[in-house]
């Protein structure tokens, strides 16, 4: 094993583990499923450590985690359960649904899933447009435009609550 790879991976793990875990927990139906998302994302990162674009590790990891989340219902359970302990711990963790103003929730629900995902990644996970470009594998310009459009649609939905129901 090349020493540099291990160091790189460990730094990425240290920087992103908690963010990835919270992201997965916010987005999965059951907290314990978040454990597999985190484990699978970092497993891919370790296996492809040489492919990760420099300085964009966090965004790259979010892209992988998104794919893992999307495929969870098709996931094949590995024999060796890497995330067993984390999964056990997460079954005890409380995830409370928010008490948000009804019109905000309704406006958000009125958006497409693509728009919602984009806005969540920015507002909940703090990703920048540059990072969105890595996550969605598009140009930074394209990411900015998509974000701008999502925001416009959300603003419209907020301003027309009766139409958004």
């Amino acid at each position, binding site marked *: *094993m*090349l*020493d540099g*790879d*291990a*160091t790189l*991976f*460990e730094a990425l*793990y*240290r*920087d992103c*583990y*908690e963010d990835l*875990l*919270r992201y997965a*927990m*916010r987005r999965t139906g059951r907290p314990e499923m978040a454990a597999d998302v*985190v*484990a699978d994302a*970092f*497993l891919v990162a*370790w*296996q*492809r*450590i*040489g492919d990760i674009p420099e300085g964009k590790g966090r965004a790259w990891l979010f892209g992988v985690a998104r794919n893992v989340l999307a495929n969870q219902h098709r996931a094949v359970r590995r*024999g*060796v*359960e*890497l*995330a*067993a*302990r*984390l999964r056990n*711990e*997460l079954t005890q*963790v*409380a*995830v*409370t*649904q*928010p008490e*948000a*103003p009804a019109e*905000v*929730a309704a406006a*958000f629900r009125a958006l497409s899933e693509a728009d919602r995902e984009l*806005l*969540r990644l*920015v*507002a*909940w996970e703090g990703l920048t447009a540059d990072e969105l470009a890595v996550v969605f594998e598009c140009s930074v310009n394209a990411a900015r435009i998509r974000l701008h459009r999502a*925001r416009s649609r*959300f*603003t419209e939905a*907020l301003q027309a609550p009766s139409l958004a129901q």
Partner: protein
Amino acid sequence: MTDTDEQQDRLIRLLSPDVHLPPFVSQPTGPVADELRQLIMAASESPAAPAGRSRKFWSPRWRFVFAAPIVVGLAAVALLVSAALPDSNPVGPGPAQAGALTFTEDNGYLDITIVDPVADPARYKAELAAHGLNIDLKLAPAAPDQVGRVIFQEENDSAGPQIKTVERPGNCSANGDCSVAIRVPLAYRGEAQIVFGRTPQPGETVEGDAPVLSPTQQGQLKSLVGKRVSDVRAILAANGQTATYRVGFASREAAADRVPVNWYVYDVAPLANDVVVLWVSADGKEPPPGS
């Protein structure tokens, strides 16, 4: 981001579920995250790894490094040599006793079980070799939930058919290790060393309790890689640490006075009691198979 964007994000955050994670779960250097990280790094090879060597360790408490033969204890272990799927049931001629191991031939694969658990492990190796398998099999004292499980596995051939782990989902340790046996393909042509856990005898310590190092200590350890043996000896002595050496592809233990001081350290690992394992070679690279 404009003010409007900020306002919008604040609204959207109102919709975010609250996640309450205890620190020992959420901290990346905490016990839960650290164990996951170690399992991930052990479970698969980095693509940049040199072809050949793979070391797998199931215990989150790090590696075992064995060189001297270990007197086998009372735990009985099943070693399956098979090219079949895990849930197949071999039927065939009865077992032929051959000393410490039993070999059952069936449909092109071998089931091997250890029938004499107090046999000298060197004898296991000889009997496995008689079947064309270069596998060094050992038992070592282990924590209770590691008894009967594979706790260390080192192979030199990551290209050919691989030694597999037999899993029993209902029989898992607390850290998620569900291995109960090893299945070696008949076509296996590599060298392997496999260690199973056994119940410690009175007075024995469990070797797996290698220390958990702080990031500083880990960094200090890593900085030894690439240095000459003479320099590393001086560093370890200054830190009150003792070195133990491993040479050759098979990681044979070598006495300090047999290791040339102008050799280089190419890998390190910590053991309990301030002992540091140094893998050394003349050119500072991992030795090729057969050396």
